[in-house]
């Protein structure tokens, strides 16, 4: 077995192990029998079973799916812009989702009014801002210019969100502020299939682009020379990124640095540019990263309560600085 496939297998095995440890961690002790019973023969009057089904299981699934989605989105952005520091968060794609969620939550104006209205608005926002950064990327002559453009889009959007917050009602404001902290705990069990379907769709569509992504690493001109329709490819990549980022952001709020840090760690570990491996590695790595981060939160929640976004930033920001010093000399 090659080095890279052993690493992928290790990641794949660690996810269910950490997942199970996560399920059995928390304030109340739950034994194996109660766990199995809650799944096969659920009794609504048993508190322990309710905790499993309504709190722990959705939280574990959300951590896995959100981590995988954001990490895959980050990988796509890095390949699209040939920039190791690209990611949905730094490039302002999260901001797009946030802005549209803010408009919906704070003003009540919505572009869609279904059960998943919020999710669809976030997705739309992510896509609009994705196309925006794709447009700006034409004028950005180097890596740093593009990243600063993304950061500026973020600041610009934050200002609008702040104005919306000033004008909104107390109740809406509280709801939006809580969402803005980022959390893996607000997803209901019956909402998890949508999240799972999103990450599966994103993964399949990304894997179908493997050939194009492998050559795009050498630049748009090289890709075109080898028969790839680069313009179409870029929009497809933005579309998938928006789908992944939009859905996760709608349900969990903005979560920083997963998309930026994980694909870089995966690339360093696997030492490859082969996207079949990078896609699978990013999905597994992202899932594991968020799962471990969330497990850490549970383990210390008796001492102090930390939002998920704080953990991912504490781990992610130094990684970004490390990459900055290493690559952009």
């Amino acid at each position, binding site marked *: 077995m090659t080095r890279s496939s052993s690493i992928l297998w290790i990641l794949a095995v660690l996810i269910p192990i950490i997942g199970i440890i996560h399920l059995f961690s928390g304030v109340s002790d739950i034994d194996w029998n109660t766990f199995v019973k809650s799944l096969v023969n659920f009794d609504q009057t048993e508190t322990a079973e309710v905790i499993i089904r309504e709190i722990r299981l959705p939280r574990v699934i959300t951590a896995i799916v959100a981590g995988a989605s954001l990490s895959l989105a980050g990988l796509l952005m890095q390949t699209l812009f040939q920039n190791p520091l690209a990611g949905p968060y730094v490039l302002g794609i999260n901001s797009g989702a946030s802005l549209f969620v803010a408009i919906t939550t704070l003003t009540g104006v919505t572009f869609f009014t279904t059960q998943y209205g919020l999710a669809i608005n976030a997705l739309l926002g992510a896509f609009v801002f994705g196309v925006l950064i794709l447009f700006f990327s034409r004028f950005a002559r180097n890596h740093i210019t593009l990243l600063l453009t993304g950061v500026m889009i973020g600041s610009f959007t934050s200002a609008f969100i702040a104005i919306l917050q000033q004008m909104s009602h107390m109740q809406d404001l509280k709801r939006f502020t809580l969402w803005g902290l980022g959390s893996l705990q607000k997803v209901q069990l019956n909402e998890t299939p949508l999240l799972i379907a999103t990450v599966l769709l994103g993964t399949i569509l990304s894997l179908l682009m493997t050939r194009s992504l492998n050559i795009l690493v050498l630049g748009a001109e090289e890709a075109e020379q*080898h028969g790839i329709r680069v313009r179409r490819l870029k929009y497809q990549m933005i579309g998938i990124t928006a789908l992944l980022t939009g859905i996760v952001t709608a349900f969990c709020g903005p979560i920083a640095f997963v998309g930026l840090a994980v694909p870089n760690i995966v690339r360093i570990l696997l030492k490859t*540019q082969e996207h079949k491996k990078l896609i699978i590695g990013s999905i597994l790595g992202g899932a594991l990263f968020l799962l471990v981060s969330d497990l850490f939160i549970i383990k210390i929640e008796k001492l102090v309560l930390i939002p998920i976004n704080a953990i991912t930033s504490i781990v992610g920001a130094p990684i970004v600085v490390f990459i900055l010093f290493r690559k952009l000399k």
Partner: protein
Amino acid sequence: MIRIEHSTIGYSTPLLRIGQLNLEKGNLYVLLGKNGAGKSTFLKTLRGTVRAIDGTLSIDGKNINSIALQDRAKLVSFVSSRPSYTEYMTVEEFVGLGRTPYLNLFAQQKESDQKAIDESIAACGIEKIRSKAIDSVSDGERQLAAVAKALAHDTPYILLDEPTAYLDYSNKRKLMELLITLAQEKNKCILATSHDVELVLKSNCSLLVIEEKEQLLHQVSNTIGLDELIEKVF
């Protein structure tokens, strides 16, 4: 055969004119011209990224601009003067990217792909560095790897934009000899641009020049003297 008739090349303003020019398989053509004379633009026109202002340009009898992107990718390959590369990629993987037009969506390589890669690496004499990282080899080795990539790309026509520009003299000679061998032995039509007059005169290739004053691109005999050639081009 690449066939060009009464064509004007350039963006909005004409850069150069071509009366009649046939580029045939089995030959290495070297295009000499001053910087800014339109060498790169001419290559871009042949690659289909820039449209000729007027005239007809055809490859194997088909008008260049009517060839679909995927089909063109199987006809013409290109090596730039500074090939782009990245980290975490071996020389072999880099050469393997030349197979892109022949792979399925998941980029799975078949036996025939591996064979083409091995042959290209052997033809360019870079077996020793095949497992090295592409970002760790010298400029000369990387240029050879880029030629190997174009060979693995397996097109009848190979275009190279100033392939010797950033190489030292011994690597320049080596690359020119390699290109001649490839053209003859693999029956390819190879067109390289250069402004290295002395180097080009020493090698056994067909000469194309862009004459400054008339902005005219045409073929000259390779028995032409150095002084006369310099007079024409510069």
